[in-house]
């Protein structure tokens, strides 16, 4: 018997909470993938580790801390938690501030290994 299909069958228009400008439609933003991936010391890494930095970003099914930039507004980067299934949006935070806890369970959502 089939798994029950999650009946999420429509479009979205995310409403993104820019920390400076407030809630704005997603069309004013560009995406920056997983948050918290700091630029490493390139010379301290093996090719394999460097390739991980270049190409691997978390891709969880669930809560993801990710980066956005409000290109059509204030032009500033920030991060927020978002659930990649339901598109619920969690707390937003500025770069170089402490990341808030994930609104979902901690430790279960995969991140880069």
């Amino acid at each position, binding site marked *: *018997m*089939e*798994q029950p*299909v*999650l009946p*999420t*069958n*429509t*479009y*979205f*228009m*995310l409403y993104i909470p820019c920390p400076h400008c407030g809630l704005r439609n*997603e*069309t004013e933003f*560009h*995406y920056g*993938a997983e948050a918290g991936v700091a630029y490493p010391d390139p010379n301290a890494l093996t*090719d*394999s580790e460097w*390739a*991980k930095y*270049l*190409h*691997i*970003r978390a*891709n*969880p*099914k669930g809560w*993801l801390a*990710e980066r956005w930039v409000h290109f059509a507004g204030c032009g500033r980067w920030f991060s927020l938690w978002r659930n*990649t*299934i*339901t*598109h619920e949006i969690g707390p937003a935070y500025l770069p170089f501030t402490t990341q808030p806890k994930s609104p979902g369970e901690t430790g279960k959502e*995969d991140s*880069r*290994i």
Partner: protein
Amino acid sequence: MINTQDTLPPGTIGRRRAATLPEQPPQLWKTVKPKKAYDAVIVGGGGHGLATAYYLAKNHGLTNIAVLEKGWLAGGNMARNTTIIRSNYLWDESAAIYEHSLKLWETLEEDLGYELFFSQRGVLTLAHSVSDARSKRRNLYANALNGIDSEWLTPEEVKKLVPIINFSEDVRYPVHGATYQPRGGIAKHDWVAWGYAKAASDLGVDIIQGTEVTGFDIRDNKVHGVHTSQGNIAAGKVGLVAAGHSSLLANLAGFSIPIQSRPLQALVSPLLEQVLNTVVMSGAVHVYVSQAHKGELVMGAGTDAFNSYSQRGGFHVIEHQLAAAVELFPIFSRAQVLRTWGGIVDIAPDASPIIGLTPVENLFINTGWGTGGFKATPGSGWVMAYTMANGTPHELNSPFALDRFVTGHLIDEHGAAGVAH
């Protein structure tokens, strides 16, 4: 197309009959319970997974295998995609695998004994600027050396082939010409999945639905089986063919892959009298359209730019898509959007697939087809079957190894299509 001046004779009701679809066979695949062990297990019951199972059985004599699908069979991309089939990719490595796939398409109905509505009605890829035309011509020359049928059409020739394209003076991005692959075309997506499923099932492959892989039995860096929602299944080899869910499976198996899962949408119109006899793609204007045998327009839209497993897309993407469609085909202005779908596509950094070995022995992966996987269904399954059966990649998929991201040998197909279809 109707001539608004003509009148029907009195008493006539309606117009011509619509093209019928042939009846489906009375028996598709057998419904069975999973065994405790198999020689090989394929995780993911979409087109690629089913094709892999079929070729494992047919080409390599491995029939003690199972396809595990967590939902209903072929409920992902194969349940609705834009059905575009072509092989005129830029890089030799890409061209080789897509062309191999196209050759398999050309005999697939016969091989499977199943109607697929495979129609080689040509694929036209439009160029809308000088630089666009330049890069497409490069693609042509590359195709020529790879023995792939591809030709350049001038705007006049494009107009003759597709009269409904907008060639008026005030169009924003005029057509500068197009590449055309006559052997490209379309096929009926779900029937392709069912054809492979039935053929695999007839060869003895177990097709198991409603069974989700929740973990792997890995010891000494070798896989010995899978944990599923229906219990543990031992397997000599495991193939991960789960498209947008690939990252999750890889992580469960203890390694990471450079895949991001993004939404992609497609839409159809109601049935219409035939106005479009070929497939038209335009990267610049973001239009990908064909008209199916039944009569509906099938259109693809762009991906949304962020990660999502929601299986839905942004409405603004649809609006933008349709503005582009009406701009390119003014006759579509009164066509209607009947239904839209959203799915999850697995995007790799170079818009090329990842097919082959993983850091775990006997665990193989096939992912990263992104927005262009349907056309590769036969070829992808074929090489994946080879790789699993032999434990090493075929020369067709060795360039698409996971470790190319470490060596830097990416195969960048972003230019080939804004959204590969």
